[in-house]
């Protein structure tokens, strides 16, 4: 925490940044520069951790980069929750105090459950993209799905949570495991121990995450500040409110859960349901056609790199 306070002091004081160009200095002297710096340090910590954890050539006997990266990524996840990132002086006290922590009118148990589930999802996602063995990748993805279904459950999406476990973790991941066992039964191959441009990819991910989180932070900063500020204009809100008034079945509280969802699916979106059913049928027929097509034996192994 002292490190972040020091960074905040560095970002807030004009002494350390006096040699910077004027535009950058003006940007950093804004009251939110410390928040931006903290968020960047957290995301950068996670990015360095992911970069260290990615498979690289010639490091199969060295395991310390993986451990160091795992420690860094875990620290980033913990910092996401514990580090206060102020959303501006106009924000309501206790609101948006940290980047990832629902300090809200919910009960604290909901907040803790949210953090545990989000930690499971994100940590399993990191382990999934850095696992050498594709079987382990699929299993970590199943854990991501379990965490995500818990998050769905926290958001009153009961049916979707059950469907995620049943369809995704029960069917799709198992199909993946079938294909892995069919195609690569020996586990991690040589190309699984190397990465394609790990530094550039991680930098791209860092930039994307910084832009997304920064946009969310920007929107949260301007929330509730007044009618005429930037963030208060929500074009979709009026139409959604109008629909929610005119049609009772659009409200989450109007019906028992699955009944309301079924009404919405099969009354409002019945054409989409039919279309998606036809799409699934076409996909099944196409999969049978593609996989059942015999490959000539003289062509097999043509591209093999031995």
């Amino acid at each position, binding site marked *: 925490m002292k490190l972040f306070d020091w960074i905040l002091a560095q970002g807030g004081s004009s002494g350390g940044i006096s040699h910077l160009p004027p535009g950058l200095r003006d940007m950093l002297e804004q009251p939110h520069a410390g928040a931006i710096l903290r968020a960047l340090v957290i995301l950068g910590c996670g990015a360095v951790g992911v970069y260290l954890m990615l498979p690289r050539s010639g490091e199969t006997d060295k395991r310390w980069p993986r451990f160091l990266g795992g420690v860094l990524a875990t620290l980033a996840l913990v910092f996401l929750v514990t580090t206060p990132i102020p959303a501006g002086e106009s924000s309501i006290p206790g609101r948006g105090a940290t980047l990832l922590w629902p300090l809200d009118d919910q009960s604290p148990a909901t907040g803790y459950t949210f953090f545990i589930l989000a930690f499971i999802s994100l940590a399993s996602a990191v382990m999934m993209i850095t696992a050498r063995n594709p079987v382990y990748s699929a299993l970590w993805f199943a854990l991501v799905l379990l965490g995500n279904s818990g998050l769905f459950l926290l958001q009153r999406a009961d049916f979707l949570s059950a469907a995620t476990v049943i369809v995704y973790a029960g069917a799709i991941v198992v199909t993946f495991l079938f294909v892995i066992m069919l195609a690569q039964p020996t586990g991690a191959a040589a190309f699984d121990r190397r990465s394609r441009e790990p530094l550039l990819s991680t930098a791209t991910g860092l930039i*994307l995450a910084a832009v997304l989180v920064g946009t969310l932070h920007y929107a949260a900063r301007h929330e509730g500040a007044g009618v005429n500020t930037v963030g208060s204009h929500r074009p979709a809100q009026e139409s959604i409110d109008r629909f929610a008034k005119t049609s009772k079945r659009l409200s989450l509280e109007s019906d028992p859960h699955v009944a309301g969802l079924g009404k919405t699916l099969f009354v409002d979106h019945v054409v989409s349901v039919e279309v998606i059913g036809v799409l699934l049928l076409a996909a099944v027929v*196409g999969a049978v056609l593609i996989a059942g097509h015999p490959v000539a034996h003289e062509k097999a192994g043509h591209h093999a790199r031995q």
Partner: protein
Amino acid sequence: MPGSETVLNNYLIVGALLFTLGLVGFLTRRNLIVMFLCAELMLQGVSLTLVAFGAYHGTWGGQVFAIFSLALAAAEAGIALALFVVIFKRGSSLDISIWQDLREADQPAIVDEPDVEAPPVEQQWPHLTVAGPLPRRTTEPKEARHDRPPAPVEIVSRRADALVNTLPSPPRGRGAGGEGGNS
């Protein structure tokens, strides 16, 4: 009636980070199946975002979208896995880099990292501890077997002897004592 924006922001951040991790994995990994799993991870992040918006607005639309994306992911997984099976039959590898053979003739090949041959992983079998004494073998070596008819194999267990010694004398003179008494 809209919910809390702080809660919405938290779910959006988790969804954004899941999407980002999926993107990094898709760009970095070279296994076709792992790349496809990363695409599914990106879909999960988007589903989380959709459900969060639906819960924020108190409507069913987000969940309906997420259900449609789930069905799409199922269809996509079926097609893509069938394609992977065909690709593996043709190329006998799931490495994405071997398919840059399909590039134009004047395009240079992408060499992403030097191909270092990994040392073979030594399989570590569990080492079983010796349980009990070794049986004493009283037969001839194997080479002598073909010369004469095989002698009756007699394996004597010291543990059985010890067991017999500790036993009280058998009442009928047979049983456990009879088995061990051949020595």
